[in-house]
């Protein structure tokens, strides 16, 4: 077997290199942060408030998203209607939707001058405020209601059709079906869904940056940014970064123990055939689907309406920022794939859950923590602000890596199971195996992954906010600055541009993976 191990060396070396990179980015930056945090003082009341607010808004967002998602998922599971497939695809869209764009859309609906407030004023009532806890939770629900719906819908569709047939033959009504079939399924699915959303909301930065702030609505991530950007208190930023990592890691560890359902699954395109219920249920389902659709589509429609007129006369800085964003996104795609492929290969070759686990470490890390760490490391060596764009691309790639592995590893494992013996028999090793077996058969997942990584990077407003000076803004940061300056017309146009670029980025790569790909 010695020869076999020797032959696999390339996999081992490249995989080990990629893993080292990931470990350096996550644990390495954390160590840098920890060393730096040593000299910082104790927590002040503001820090405790930030921790409390972070946990509270994440819990609230998770619970509300899931509670609202249950009836929507149920309605989607048992109704078949034209446009259902499209709607379910749309539920996947928030994942690649730039956060800052959605925030602008939500402002247009729920903001002070938004549709809802205008209607309330017209009716002689108080307008609502979207800033603070409300706003943060509304935005998080906007992003995570679709995710929760997809996760729960998946649960619904795992109930075998035969069970529903059996239930029908036994004369079950909707209540009986709920008790016997649906509640046990929900008990299995909901904890995982809650945890995933809690984790996402725990590390979300852009929403808090745009809608939070002030003593009563500052998250830990936002506090890191403020300590860094406004006070340039690296010790404080580092201390907060440790807290953020601890919270993320704890939630991620719990999430690992609870079976977390896969978020990007397919096969949601069929409805469960059921025989129970009457017109009241139909009405209830129509309302659920209708409201959910409105909640998701309205903010995006507002972006489209408000942004379209200004699109042709976008200011030059916005266009430059767009160019930079495209470059950063493309670099991030390349980095994501060059991390994901060697790690996936190593994980599959050694059937190692540990390798894959290390690869997904970044899910617990927060971009701002990594950013703080990188800053501390780079600061003595070079001007970190000059490296804002490369650092952004790298951090974005690290953030996309867990999703990339989730997509690539199972497919690669399948390829090796099915064609590994044949390839071994032909002596298809090294580059030849990569070119003639992996690459052609991985085209679809690679295209999808690249699209995901590109779109995520395109819309990211995280570490760039820490590092960038005015000359090096990406499009999301430029958009944030326009919003801060109340140039809402330009902001809407920039948001529309960003939205189009993100979708284009995803579409182009995903399509590229599908063209001429053999089943």
């Amino acid at each position, binding site marked *: *077997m*010695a*020869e*076999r191990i020797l*032959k696999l060396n390339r996999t081992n070396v490249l995989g080990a290199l990629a893993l080292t990179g990931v470990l350096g980015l996550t644990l390495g930056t954390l160590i840098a942060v920890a060393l730096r945090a040593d000299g910082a003082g104790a927590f002040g009341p503001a820090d405790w408030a930030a921790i409390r607010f972070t946990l509270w808004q994440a819990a609230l967002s998770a619970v509300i998203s899931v509670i609202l998602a249950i009836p929507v998922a149920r309605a989607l599971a048992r109704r078949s209607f034209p446009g259902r497939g499209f709607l379910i695809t749309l539920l996947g869209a928030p994942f690649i939707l730039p956060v800052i764009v959605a925030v602008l859309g939500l402002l247009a609906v729920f903001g002070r001058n938004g549709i809802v407030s205008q209607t309330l004023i017209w009716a002689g009532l108080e307008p609502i405020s979207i800033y603070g806890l409300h706003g943060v939770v509304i935005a998080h629900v906007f992003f995570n209601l679709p995710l929760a719906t997809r996760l729960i819908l998946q649960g619904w569709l795992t109930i075998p059709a035969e069970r529903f047939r059996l239930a029908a033959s036994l004369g079950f009504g909707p209540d009986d079906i709920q008790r016997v079939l649906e509640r046990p399924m929900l008990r299995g699915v909901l904890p995982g869904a809650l945890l995933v959303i809690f984790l996402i909301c725990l590390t979300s930065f852009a929403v808090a940056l745009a809608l939070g702030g002030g003593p009563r609505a500052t998250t830990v991530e936002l506090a890191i940014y403020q300590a860094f950007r406004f006070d340039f208190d690296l010790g404080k930023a580092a201390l907060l970064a440790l807290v953020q990592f601890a919270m993320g890691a704890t939630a991620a560890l719990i999430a690992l123990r609870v079976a977390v359902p896969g978020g990007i699954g397919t096969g949601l395109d069929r409805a469960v055939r059921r025989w129970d219920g009457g017109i009241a249920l139909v009405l209830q389902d129509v309302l659920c689907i209708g409201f959910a659709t409105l909640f998701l589509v309205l903010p995006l429609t507002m972006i489209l309406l408000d942004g379209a007129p200004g699109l042709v006369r976008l200011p030059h800085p916005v266009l430059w920022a767009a160019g930079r964003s495209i470059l950063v996104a493309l670099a991030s795609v390349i980095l994501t794939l060059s991390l994901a492929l060697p790690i996936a290969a190593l994980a599959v070759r050694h059937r190692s859950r540990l390798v894959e686990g290390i690869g997904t470490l970044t899910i617990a890390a927060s971009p701002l923590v990594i950013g703080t760490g990188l800053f501390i490391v780079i600061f003595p060596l070079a001007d970190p602000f000059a490296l804002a764009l490369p650092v952004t691309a790298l951090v974005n790639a690290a953030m996309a890596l867990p999703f990339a592995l989730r997509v690539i590893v199972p497919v690669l494992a399948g390829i090796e199971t*099915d*064609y590994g*013996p*044949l390839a*071994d*028999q*032909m*002596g*298809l*090793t090294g*580059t*030849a*195996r990569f070119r*003639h*077996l992996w690459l*052609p*058969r991985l085209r679809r997942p690679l295209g999808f992954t690249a699209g995901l990584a590109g779109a995520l990077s395109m819309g990211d407003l995280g570490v760039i906010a820490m590092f960038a000076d005015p000359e090096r803004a990406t499009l999301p940061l430029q958009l944030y600055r326009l919003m801060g300056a109340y140039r809402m017309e330009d902001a809407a146009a920039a948001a529309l541009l960003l939205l189009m670029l993100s979708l284009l980025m995803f579409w182009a790569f995903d399509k590229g993976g599908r063209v001429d*790909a*053999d*089943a």
Partner: protein
Amino acid sequence: MLTLEDLHIVMDDFTLDADLSVETGACVAVLGPSGAGKSTLLMAIAGFLPLTSGRILWGGAPMPDTPAKRPISMVFQDNNLFPHMTAFDNVALGLRPSLRLTGPERGQVENALARVGLTGLGDRKPGQLSGGQAARVALARVLLRNRPLLLLDEPFGALGPALRTEMVALVKDLVTETGATLLMVSHEPEDAREIADQVILVAEGTAHAPVPTAKIFADPPAALREYLGK
């Protein structure tokens, strides 16, 4: 000569023992109930399974560790062709894994395809071929690799009776042409009668030494009788 020397394989609660040899140029059918270890035996010979103990020798020398370096062509139960490659490339792999072929080598590939009756179908991908044609592509590659030991692990199991008979006849022709030693796993005693002059019976965790086909069918041992149902 292929020699299995005190071969012992343990996988979970499954074991397989073999201590036998096969003459060079022999055509051997591997028969036995399903789950007895017929495929395991072939996979071990091809180098895909670690041996718990024992050795596998070819011509008195131990086999190399890497499957591709063994003097073996193997046709599996399924997944014998890469679906994203043309029939031509699938065959060409047998010559050069890098697929960088010289002119004469391209000719060799074309000849192999022609020999199995697939002239002009080299550009098709497996999805555009019938089951019988796909099996022929795999055999064309076997022909091209020209290794002295051919292992067939029920490669025609998914084909209908007429097609299978046709493929078995083709295998017989190829083996006769190349002088290769053949080990073929089959469910069908008919195949054994058709092609094999010897039979290895695999039953109850043991692969028995080869016995002349006529003899074993004339007086089947208990395990084979049970399997045949008579």
